[in-house]
């Protein structure tokens, strides 16, 4: 492809500016601010437009930057000729939004635009077909900026980029950028060790949740155990309650039986005492009237006897416990006096009566004796009770005591047993309430295991998803690396061959060839067949080789296709005169088969070029031109 004419209808500072270019080497010379960059951008814009790479219709900053300073239609045209001699004219409208282009056959004027594919950005891809390079490939190879010192260090990356570009021709398919993007993606997920990363957080949360779940399950197990024991203890309590009820009944019945027996004894004893006293009274009564008869017959005896009887009766009635011996003494004394009198009056009758009296007296004494003994026993039996209170007690016990078989053991034994049972019951009740409290407390504190189980599963799912994503990222990155390596392996020897020829020219024959290995590392071979690493070369030589590399890459990329023009923007600023001359002469050589356009603000290059027979276009000062 040879560019014949640029026409800047209205573009940046230029308005109606025409630039006619010939084949071969052309140097565009102009001082700073003369618009060299604008012309470069115009050429790029004419060929590839001002849209960003990608799928969306977005514009680069240049689209706005080169709006005509003085207004008017933001457009231009370009005339070029292909290797087969066909000439085309392209007209382009740059205004973002309404931008577009038409490709015409320059001879016939036929609109050929529809012959070219249009991409998603609605960009007509005529240049890819006619230049033979995509925009990215063009920028990476055919468009050479300032050749800075030490650039060779970046050569490897450039080769890698271009290796891929040779086939795709697209910079946005840069392997390195893709690998970087994948690495960013993997980094966003993170690792287990990066504890604040998504993955790290998930792994830690999982471990914590699992621990919490294990603790909760342990707690649940303990609760179930306590509950089971509580159930057992409560069952024992129920049993004890049953036993207590039974034993308590027995005890009550035993108490009742014993109270009844006591009451019976008290009642019987009381009756006997009453009988005895009744007998004693009768005996006395029987004696008192017979004595009274005799007293009527003026006998002192009965009076004495009577007084003794009254004394005894009084004593008895007064409830005084009178000792048997004392009574007998009184009675004995009274009896003695009477007997003496009776004996004096009627000795025979008296003897009979005396015998009878003695018998009666003895009987009376015996009855009194027995009554007194029983009364003592009764008193001991009753203690603080009375027969009445005892009867009331029995009555009450009868009402309270449950029916049942008669007790086999005494109340005291039974009571002891009830006490023992009650102690056991209290012990179990305490254990039950302790267990119940433990269960209650534990239940309050134990987390919901179902919730935890669910959370754990969710986290595991999350972790798995991250791992799957990381595995996919890894697979993608590995595949891209492999693929890139493969391309390099194919590309490297071809690049080496293309570079080899140039190396000699650029280094004045000091180096014979350049070797490029599969990893795109370069070494040079000296005249005497020594291999020298790039790092061992002088800076100047390395820079020369870099230019050679660019040219070799362009050759490789356009092999068998249209020869794209080579565009260099002030390439030799940092070169000394000798190197600049060598480089320029190389370019002149290249220009025999490829149009070469050098933009420079250095008169040196313009002069050198003139000397080589190249055409030189001098850009007048843009400000002056603008007003012209």
């Amino acid at each position, binding site marked *: 492809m040879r560019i014949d004419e640029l026409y800047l209808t209205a573009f940046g500072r230029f308005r109606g500016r025409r630039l006619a270019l010939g084949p071969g080497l052309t140097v565009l010379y102009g001082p700073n601010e003369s618009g060299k960059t604008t012309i470069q951008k115009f050429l790029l814009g004419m060929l590839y437009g001002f849209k960003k790479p990608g799928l969306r219709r977005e514009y680069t900053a240049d689209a706005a930057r080169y709006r005509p300073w003085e207004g008017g239609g933001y457009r231009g045209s370009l005339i070029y000729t292909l290797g087969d001699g066909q000439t085309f004219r392209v007209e382009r409208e740059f205004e973002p939004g309404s931008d577009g282009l038409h490709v015409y056959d320059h001879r016939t004027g036929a609109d050929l635009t529809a012959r070219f594919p249009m991409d998603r950005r609605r960009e007509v891809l005529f240049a890819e077909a006619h230049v033979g390079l995509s925009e990215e490939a063009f920028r990476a190879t055919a468009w050479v900026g300032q050749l800075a010192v030490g650039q060779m260090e970046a050569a490897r990356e450039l080769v890698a980029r271009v290796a891929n570009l040779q086939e795709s021709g697209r910079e946005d*398919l840069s392997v390195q950028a893709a690998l970087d*993007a994948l690495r960013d993606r993997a980094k966003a997920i993170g690792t287990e060790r990066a504890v604040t990363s998504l993955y790290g957080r998930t792994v830690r949360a999982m471990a914590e949740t699992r621990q919490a779940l294990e603790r909760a399950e342990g707690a649940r197990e303990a609760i179930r155990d306590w509950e089971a024991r509580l159930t057992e203890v409560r069952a024992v309590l129920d049993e004890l309650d049953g036993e207590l009820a039974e034993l308590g009944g027995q005890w009550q019945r035993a108490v009742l039986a014993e109270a009844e027996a006591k009451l019976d004894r008290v009642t019987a004893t009381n009756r006997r005492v009453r009988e005895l006293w009744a007998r004693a009274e009768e005996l006395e009564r029987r004696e008192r009237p017979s004595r009274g008869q005799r007293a009527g017959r003026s006998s002192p005896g009965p009076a004495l006897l009577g007084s003794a009887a009254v004394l005894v009766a009084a004593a008895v009635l007064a409830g005084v416990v009178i000792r048997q011996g004392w009574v007998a003494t009184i009675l004995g004394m009274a009896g003695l006096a009477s007997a003496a009198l009776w004996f004096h009056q009627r000795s025979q009758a008296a003897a009979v009566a005396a015998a009878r009296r003695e018998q009666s007296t003895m009987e009376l004494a015996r009855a009194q004796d027995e009554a007194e003994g029983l009364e003592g026993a009764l008193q001991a039996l009753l203690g603080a009770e009375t027969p009445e209170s005892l009867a009331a007690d029995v009555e009450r016990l009868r009402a309270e005591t449950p029916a049942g078989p008669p007790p086999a053991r005494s109340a005291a034994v039974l009571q002891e047993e009830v006490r023992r049972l009650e102690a056991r019951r209290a012990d179990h009740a305490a254990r039950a309430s302790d267990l119940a409290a433990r269960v209650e407390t534990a239940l309050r504190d134990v987390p919901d295991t179902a919730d935890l189980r669910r959370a754990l599963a969710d986290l595991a799912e999350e972790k798995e998803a991250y791992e799957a994503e990381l595995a996919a990222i890894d697979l993608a990155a590995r*595949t891209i690396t492999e693929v890139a390596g493969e391309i390099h392996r194919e590309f490297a020897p071809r690049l080496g061959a293309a570079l080899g020829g140039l190396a000699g020219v650029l280094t004045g024959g000091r180096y014979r060839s350049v070797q490029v290995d599969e990893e795109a590392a370069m070494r040079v071979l000296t005249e005497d067949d020594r291999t020298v690493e790039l790092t061992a070369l002088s800076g100047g030589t390395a820079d020369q080789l870099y230019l050679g590399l660019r040219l070799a890459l362009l050759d490789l990329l356009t092999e068998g296709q249209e020869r794209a023009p080579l565009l260099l923007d002030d390439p030799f600023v940092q070169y000394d005169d000798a190197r600049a001359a060598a480089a320029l002469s190389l370019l002149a050589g290249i220009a025999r088969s490829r149009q070469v356009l050098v933009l420079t603000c250095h008169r040196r290059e313009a002069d050198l070029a003139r000397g080589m027979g190249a055409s030189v276009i001098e850009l007048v000062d843009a400000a002056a031109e603008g007003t012209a």
Partner: protein
Amino acid sequence: MVVESYSPMEVKGVQAIKVLHLADMHLEWPFVSAGGDALRGRLRREELKAVFAGIIDLAAREGVQVLLAAGDLFEHAHASRATVKFIDDQFRRIPDVAVFISPGNHDPYLEGSYWQTYPWAPNVHVFGPEPEQVDLEHLPISVLGWGFGAWEVRQWQLGHLRMGDPGRINLAVLHGGEGTYHPFTPADLAALGADYIALGHIHKEGVVLEQGGRVVARYSGSPEALGFGEPGVHGVYLGTVSKEANRFQFVPTGLRQYITADVDVTGAVSPEDVAAAALAVDDAAARQQHCYRLRLTGRIDPELAIDLPVLQEKLAGQFYLLRLEDATEPDYDLAALAREKSARGLFVRRLLALEESATGDAERQRARRALALGLGAFAGKGGGR
């Protein structure tokens, strides 16, 4: 829950008895991977209890004589005494119904389990790991049962047993049927000689043994679906068993269904388009009633990154429970890309070949995902979605 068409059969000869067959209630199920948040999980657990209470209502209303609960009534790991008390309280509401429970692998008859420690209602009989036959005194009914005594049981446990009394209705209630969960075959079941065998373990209802047109053994399925693995309508079986015929009817008891659907979002150009497509899966009433797992499928603009959490949040109010999965693929012309002479073209060819030769789903998916990621990376897309 209304049973409209249920009418007990008049059966000649030995009287027909009315039976309710229930299984796999799984009270306190943790609803793992069933979508929604923790709160939804708890809510679902409450709903399970409500469904169980509804089944007891059904038993009461229908005058059921025997209730057969074929295992996995509750989750041993997550049930508390309160859960068990709830279950027991329900059984106490139907004191005239003889309840027979054969514990399953989720609620095995373990030492210290509530089966052994809880004072169950008098109308409840729980079978342990020794097969046992209970002959009812007031009815000519015998019930054979066996319950899991461990988390796994690798052998059929009732090989030596046969119920043959022709004067009685012979029922059996069992859990398991596969793998390490008490495996058995229809022939094993047939050998029991039972008139009806209530099975539990498989959450989808289905007949296991049919003899002379009489369904003798079946799974009743889970009364309430427990996750997306259990689509469709769930319920219990209610009917009569006699020596001549078993007349059962499926009674739906499930409150909510788990619905899985693919939502093709091909052509969607904005997140709103994707949301609209998800909403179109069902009407509003259904969306508020059931649980949905929506798999977004189709090819979409590679620039349209679907942000699942955002989309999920956007749609949350529109669904009772929604689980979103992204299975969309960036709309690349893979055939054209594969023809491309570039690292990208070579990359696409490699991964398509890898996907082709993948031996498993995971491997295939990984290749497919790597392809999408790589293409995105070539287009300069890094970072997370």
